[in-house]
């Protein structure tokens, strides 16, 4: 799947490469946050309401004199951590349910798809807010809530892939050979629909990061972790006096989500070179 043609196609796409650079920079920022900005991001670093570049603080300070640049670096960890783990959980659930529905068909398919449709109808964000508020905000409750509302579209996608692949000859051959259902699902069919799963997973990370930032904007973030949404949310009331407090964390979210979206699209184009040529024409 990741052969030379694929790499070349991906690297020829300027947007995708740009996205990859942004994402890599954010990951490095998260990894080396402690080296770049030693000390607790919650501690006072300068006078409150410091403009950018004042007191040697790149992006200024907030109402309590905390370093905004340091908050952004440390906040990258929370965003990436929650984005990645909730996506992993959602992918596991979505792939499993989608695979079962597509492979078995009939009543099982019907039941699973009704269930999936239900989760797509329910207002996602409201459900996330309700769950996190009731189970008190923590990394676990946030991850579970985000995963709960993200798996449905993927289950749909995987089911579709399984439905078409199931009638292909190599699957029929595997059945004739007497392979078990689990073997056929995981070793025969699943490897053949990995590329759409990878593409949607990369887009799901972006959505999860947006969801997490919205939660912490509403004050439902993990209270022990500095996060971008929290920084924007707490600076909201002083927007008139201090634009930089909500501006820079917002740009961090924008860049991260943009980068991930670009990478996702680049992957999609590289996996489907035929589609890409058609789109350009």
């Amino acid at each position: 799947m990741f052969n030379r043609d694929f790499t070349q196609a991906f690297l020829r796409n300027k947007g995708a490469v740009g996205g990859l650079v942004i994402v890599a920079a954010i990951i490095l920022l998260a990894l080396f946050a402690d080296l770049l900005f030693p000390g607790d991001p919650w501690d006072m670093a300068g006078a409150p309401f410091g403009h950018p570049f004042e007191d040697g603080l790149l992006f200024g300070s907030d109402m309590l004199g905390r370093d905004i640049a340091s908050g952004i670096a440390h906040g990258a960890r929370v965003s990436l951590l929650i984005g990645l783990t909730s996506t992993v959980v959602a992918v596991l659930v979505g792939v499993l349910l989608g695979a079962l529905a597509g492979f078995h068909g009939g009543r099982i398919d019907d039941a699973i798809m009704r269930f999936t449709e239900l989760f797509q109808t329910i207002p996602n964000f409201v459900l996330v807010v309700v769950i996190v508020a009731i189970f008190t905000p923590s990394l676990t409750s946030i991850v579970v809530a985000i995963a709960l509302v993200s798996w449905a579209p993927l289950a749909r996608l995987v089911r579709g892939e399984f439905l078409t692949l199931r009638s292909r000859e190599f699957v029929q051959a595997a059945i004739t050979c007497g392979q078990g259902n689990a073997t056929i699902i995981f070793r025969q069919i699943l490897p053949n629909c990995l590329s759409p799963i990878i593409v949607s997973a990369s887009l799901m990370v972006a959505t999860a990061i947006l969801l997490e930032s919205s939660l912490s904007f509403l004050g439902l973030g993990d209270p022990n972790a500095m996060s971008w949404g929290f920084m924007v949310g707490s600076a909201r009331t002083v927007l008139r006096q201090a634009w930089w407090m909500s501006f820079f964390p917002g740009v961090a979210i924008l860049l991260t989500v943009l980068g991930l979206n670009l990478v996702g699209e680049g992957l999609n184009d590289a996996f489907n070179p035929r589609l890409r040529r058609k789109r350009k024409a």
Partner: protein
Amino acid sequence: MPQMLRFLFSRLTKAIVVLGVVVVLNFTLIHAAPGDPATVMAGEAGAADQMFVDQLRKQFGLDQPLYVQLGTYVGHILQGDLGYSVRQQRPVVDLLLDRLPATVALTMSAFVLALAGGIAMGLLAAVNVGKWSDSVITVLALLSYATPIYWVGLMLVLVFSVNLGWLPAFGYESIGAGKAGLERFADILEHMALPVVTLGLFYMAVYTRLTRASALEVSSMDFVKTARAKGQSEWKIVTRHVLRNAILPVLTVAGVQAGQLVGGSILVETVFAWPGLGRLTFDAVLQRDYQVLLGVFFVTSVLVIVFNIITDLLYVLIDPRVEIA
């Protein structure tokens, strides 16, 4: 007309199933919450000795088996009783109904703006594919798609209210201005401008991308070539042949995403102090007022179903091949 009736009937059954699940989910969430509802209520009332908690348990039937409690809960909801907010000293239904009109006005306007704007921009990009206007639209859509909705709101306030002073930054109308009739209407419209644009922008980006992709796909089909071969004007080809076919997948997605639009209004209303359900949710989150939160979840689910039915009807209107079923 019986077709129409059958359509509405099948839709209604579906809606009832969804709402039933929402109710059960609500019930489960209350009971899965850490601490039982009686202690939560006692905490909200500000007193918590054992006798009071026991009394509350009895009063609200919390000493009954779970399925009996579920039955009572469903019964209450069927009678339009969504619980009582101890914090605000009012029935939840009253709170919700007070706030519903503002949210409906905001989400509907944003939905219309997003759909109309998105389809127009997407079509414009598709017609000019590869030219600079296409690139500009694509980049703008990509950016709006990646921006957190509440941050867009804050930045718009910064530009249009704080710096330029063109539009009011928050509220539903000017308080104490004593405006009436048309003047009041204009005032409300002025207050609506920023929230509607904020909420609509994200979805406009989604629909722009969809329309562009779908219009490009349709343009390469045979019937478009035929139309061009028989000498039809470019304008007619785009509006009559391409647009009408390209719009269908966009509507499908728009229907599915209606729920997210309602969810997004929570954030937008928080930013603009818009007196709707979202603002109510934000306050309920701050006060940990679970009854109100669950009520909001129920009402927004109803809203989503209404949105879905509207998009389904639009679908039929645009594509005569789709039978109402």
